[in-house]
């Protein structure tokens, strides 16, 4: 295996991982934009999507149909979470809302454990997705799921790009993220925008959860927590509340993680997650507006 092949292999891995982070981070940023709320339960919405698919395939539903249902289930879960837990505390101080969202996560994960136990179960992947591809005489390998992740991320983000630049609702979400009272003054229905934001963000989380489970091969009630935290770091790196920032941050974080593991000695690379969160703290201290909004204070 040549140096170049190794490098290419790592790039494939980085893009694949970065795509997942970007998908999750985009949803976090959408919700943060309109509500100034860090939605930790976003990770559990991922879990809902993945479990939905696993359960439906288990009772014989074809995989593609199950995926669509899983995404829908995630969207519904996001809608309910907003309605039940977040709406009553919408005007509370920011830290109170942060804690509430942690509590929601805590509840959902424990309900998941109660119903499904905490032991991982298999994620059923159809045969046509279980293949792997080789390039350069096997020096570079990637699975169909890697490809599918990258392709679906690309398509769904194009769709999102269209939504937030071409539709009134999408523009309204960006407007509300910038200036809530100005958005109200032009006649945007903020309640409706928040609901739409949760549904869209949760659908993306559902998709991300399904892809995450497909790569890992298993589903588990707490599966969403780690990717959620990582995506949160990604969103902060890019600029929290900015959708473009979430994308950029997702891919940067994916690359950073893969390259820490690929090029640093294992005595250091095993501390990968500690490095990632040190990066988070550094950004909060030095550049809280993220890479894309260097001069913008995050308004809370």
């Amino acid at each position, binding site marked *: 295996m040549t140096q170049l092949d190794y490098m290419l292999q790592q790039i494939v891995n980085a893009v694949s991982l970065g795509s997942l982070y970007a998908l999750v981070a985009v949803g976090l940023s959408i919700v943060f934009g309109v509500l100034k709320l860090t939605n930790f339960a976003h990770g559990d919405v991922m879990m809902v999507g993945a479990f939905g698919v696993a359960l439906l395939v288990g009772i014989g539903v074809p995989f593609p149909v199950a995926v669509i249902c899983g995404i829908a289930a995630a969207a519904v879960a996001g809608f309910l979470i907003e309605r039940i837990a977040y709406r009553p505390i919408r005007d509370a101080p920011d830290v109170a809302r942060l804690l*509430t969202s942690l*509590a929601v996560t805590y509840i959902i994960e424990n309900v998941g454990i109660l119903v499904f136990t905490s032991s991982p179960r298999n994620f059923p992947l159809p045969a046509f997705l279980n293949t792997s591809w080789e390039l350069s005489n096997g020096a570079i390998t990637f699975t169909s799921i890697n490809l599918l992740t990258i392709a679906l991320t690309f398509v769904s983000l194009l769709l999102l790009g269209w939504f937030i630049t071409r539709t009134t609702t999408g523009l309204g979400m960006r407007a509300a993220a910038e200036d809530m009272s100005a958005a109200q003054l032009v006649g945007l229905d903020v309640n409706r925008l928040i609901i739409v934001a949760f549904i869209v963000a949760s659908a993306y989380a559902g998709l991300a959860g399904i892809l995450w489970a497909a790569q890992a091969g298993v589903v588990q009630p707490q599966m969403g927590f780690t990717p959620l935290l990582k995506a949160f770091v990604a969103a902060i790196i890019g600029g929290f509340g900015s959708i473009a920032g979430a994308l950029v941050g997702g891919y940067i974080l994916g690359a950073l993680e893969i390259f820490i593991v690929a090029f640093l000695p294992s005595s250091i690379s095993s501390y990968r997650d500690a490095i990632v969160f*040190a990066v988070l703290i550094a950004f909060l201290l030095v550049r809280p507006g993220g890479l894309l909004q260097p001069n913008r204070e995050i308004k809370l």
Partner: protein
Amino acid sequence: MSREARIKLCVLFALVAGAVVAFGAPHVLSDYFVRIILLIALNAILVLSLSLSNGFTGVFSLGHVGFIGAGAYISGILSIPVQQKLALLPHLPAFLHAFSLPFLPATLVAGVLTALLAVVVGYPLMRLSGYFVSVATMGFLIIVNVVLINASDFTRGARTFTGVPLETTLPWVFGWLAITLFVLARLVYSPFGRAMKSVRDDTIAASAVGIGVLRTRLIAFVIGAFFAGVGGSLYAHYLGSFSPNTFYFSLTMSLITMLVLGGMGSLSGALVGVVCVSLLSEVLRSVERGFTIGEFSVPALFGASQIVLGFIFILIMIFRPKGIMGEREFTFGLTQRSAVVNQTEERKR
């Protein structure tokens, strides 16, 4: 009787009562109830140490459990008997193999080292406010967890850390609780305490009247971390064996629930919260294990207690965000001064 004398008498009474419970309870009560009392007192130390930054200074740290974990591991490493240490932690540096400390010095060292860690962590982080400091300290919690899992020469990694002598008895916990309460009460109701509260209530106004915001926050953070380290040590010597995930989000959540339920700006509130949540958890845990009432048998519901705690937390946030006590204290009328006293004190200032 003068006010001073009444306070002294009351404190003396509380100390005697505490001592009677601490030394007497094991002879009267079953092990189960002794364990509950001990856990309540232990949680009280942890929550009180948390209240200093989160409640009184307005720096809502999510990283406090990181300090508790650090204290537990430090104290554990120091106090495992030498023979066992060689077997359990063969890769420790040689000087750590050479000795093992008794409970009290190990606890003190754990407290001091944890406080030093808090100086290093807090110096940059205490510049942040509100939401940002919460997120940054959460990052610290995660980093501690990663380090505990990976520094396996010291911690056995993700495997259970075991062999810590079980020395945490009621008198120890009550003693430390009394010290914690004493120090915190002196601190919170002193000029420095007023500085902390003014930093919490209005950072800009505080710095305008010459209060060093960073310094005030840092002192509160470091003192809180000292008692977190002490509490961690007590916890370690209570459990005997634990793992990095003992000191992670779950513990964070329950400590925060206790603090928020009781009321964040009140020492007695913290105690009320601890007692309520601890008792409730105990009841829920027995429900969780499954039980039988007459004909009905309820199966085991693992995680049910956490779910209920989570709901309670959200309900507090919605309906009583200031907690049971808010900023009030149980004073039993001790702090009521006559108007004359107040006026003379005003004149002195």
